[in-house]
């Protein structure tokens, strides 16, 4: 975007505030679950107050060990992870992690999952009681855990069942995170909207695999892993565009967002906000740059409110 630099900056600064299912966000930028820990890890690199929201690592009922090592493999312009949803469990989350979150005013979205319908319901119920939880993000799309994501997230009937069950448990906004590993994401999007989702976030990782030629085996101990990073951006953009045109609830765009330009692309095709994942791992200050870059881009074009950029694709 070399041309950006030529132009002069105008005042006043554009408004970046957006609303997702009643949740007001300072700006449309938040971390993607699992790439930002529970927030605390990034406080040396980033002013957490700057963010549109904080999204936590996925929480389950019981603590989860996750997968054996190796859990990571780098791929061209991307990475595979098979963390296996390792997390401290809802108990420890409430007793250990919420304390830190109380110190900041940024909205907190807690990502969660279960291995059974009952677990989903139970975690949702517990989260609903935590004051600091401003919204929940239901992960029905994790491709790593056999008992989890793959079943719930790839069949519209099963997905709808989880969503409506969880819906009954929570008063806070319910965001449902979709898996890209499906034939038609529009069908999934409509199913979860009908079942009561307040917003959709998409996409989660694409299922992939890497091979270690030297050791003559698969690189990840788990066999498959979730592909994220710039490599998946074209697929993510396509799916966000499809979902935006299929539902009337707001959509949060995710997938390979590394720069302000990437974020602006998702907003342009209609995402109301974006989540930044892998970029945080490459550069813990990534989101600060992205927020500043969005502001600069809009200002240079005299766009006064990010909401008039959102969905304004010609």
């Amino acid at each position, binding site marked *: 975007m070399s041309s950006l630099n030529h132009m002069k900056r105008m005042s006043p600064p554009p408004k970046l505030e957006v609303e997702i299912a009643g949740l007001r966000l300072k700006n449309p930028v938040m971390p993607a679950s*699992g790439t930002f*820990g529970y927030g605390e890890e990034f406080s040396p690199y980033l002013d957490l107050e700057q963010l549109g929201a904080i999204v936590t690592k996925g929480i389950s009922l019981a603590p989860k060990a996750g997968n054996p090592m190796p*859990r990571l493999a780098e791929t061209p312009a991307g*990475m595979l992870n098979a963390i296996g949803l390792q997390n401290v469990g809802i108990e420890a989350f409430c007793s250990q992690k919420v304390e830190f979150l109380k110190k900041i005013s940024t909205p907190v979205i807690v990502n969660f999952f279960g291995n059974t319908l009952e677990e989903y319901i139970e975690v949702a119920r517990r989260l609903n009681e935590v004051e600091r939880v401003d919204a929940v993000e239901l992960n029905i799309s994790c491709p790593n855990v056999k008992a989890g994501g793959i079943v719930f997230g790839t069949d519209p009937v099963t997905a709808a069942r989880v969503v409506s069950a969880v819906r009954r448990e929570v008063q806070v906004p319910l965001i449902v995170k979709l898996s890209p590993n499906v034939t038609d994401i529009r069908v999934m999007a409509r199913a979860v909207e009908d079942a009561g989702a307040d917003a959709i976030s998409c996409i989660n990782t694409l299922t992939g695999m890497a091979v270690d030629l030297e050791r003559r085996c698969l690189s990840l101990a788990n066999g498959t892993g979730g592909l994220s990073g710039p490599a998946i951006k074209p697929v993510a953009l396509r799916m966000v565009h499809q979902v935006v045109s299929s539902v009337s609830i707001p959509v949060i765009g995710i997938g390979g967002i590394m720069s302000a330009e990437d974020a602006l692309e998702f907003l342009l095709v209609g995402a109301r906000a974006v989540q930044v994942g892998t970029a945080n*791992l490459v550069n813990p200050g990534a989101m600060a740059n992205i927020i500043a870059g969005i502001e600069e881009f809009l200002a240079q074009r005299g766009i006064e409110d990010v909401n008039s950029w959102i969905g304004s694709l010609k």
Partner: protein
Amino acid sequence: MKDSITTVLYNRQMAPGYYCMGIAAPGYPQLARPGQFVMVRVNQSYDPLLRRPFGIFRTGTEELSHSEMESQDYMEVVYKVVGRGTRLMSHLVAGDEVGLLGPLGQGFCISPDAGGAMRDAVLVGGGIGVVPLFMLAQQLVARGVKVHLLLGGRNCGDILALAEFERLGVKTSIATDDGTLGEKCFVTQLLQATLQKFPAVQVFACGPTPMLHAVQQICAAAGAELQVSLEATMACGVGACLGCVVEGRNHSEQQPEYLCTCKQGPVFDAHELAWTQEALGPVLTPAEDSL
């Protein structure tokens, strides 16, 4: 613990396949502790995407002779070219930009007894594993600890930084697989011999996982305290992705206890870790490079 775009000051070949890169690193001389590491972003392209972790070899401050009477903090990374990222690094020249995140992780823990009750320390380095031992040796020597350095490698080309340790006055013993330098044996055999001479000392080790396993067994048998610096494939380096974990001592399927190499490590007290075959993850170094 900062993330910055900074400049390469120099990038010299030390031995075939090994380089030493000086990087402008304000604050590092004060901040960096022995055993800590940095994450380096080699270029601005998305391929390769991830930063690469490197131990901090040493830090320093250079007086700049220019007009301004300023001084320049720097750090040195000593690295081996093993793949794409390190190959790209080896092409960098003075003035090029790199992304530098650090200093990161927990370094070696120097006991308050050092120099007092604790008078001897044994440092064991396998190949490139020598890197974090230099600053450790510096600090131990400064405390009056007698440092015994044991270095292992496949051949003389893998034994690095001898001159630097010599200048510190550290006594070094060398083992190579092919006998081209020092004794023709494994570095673990040197360790065994050393522990017989100096029982109950503190051992610090860094090198490939199989070497660390052997070191751990030797130390456990000899009753020596051991700290090890581990390697792991890393993405974030700051404890966020959980990609770099090793199994803690009490780890079990039911009661998982995973430790992040990047955050709780890379240096661990041997007692913190489970020493089963899988606990420390797979051997990362290419097959023919194992010690």
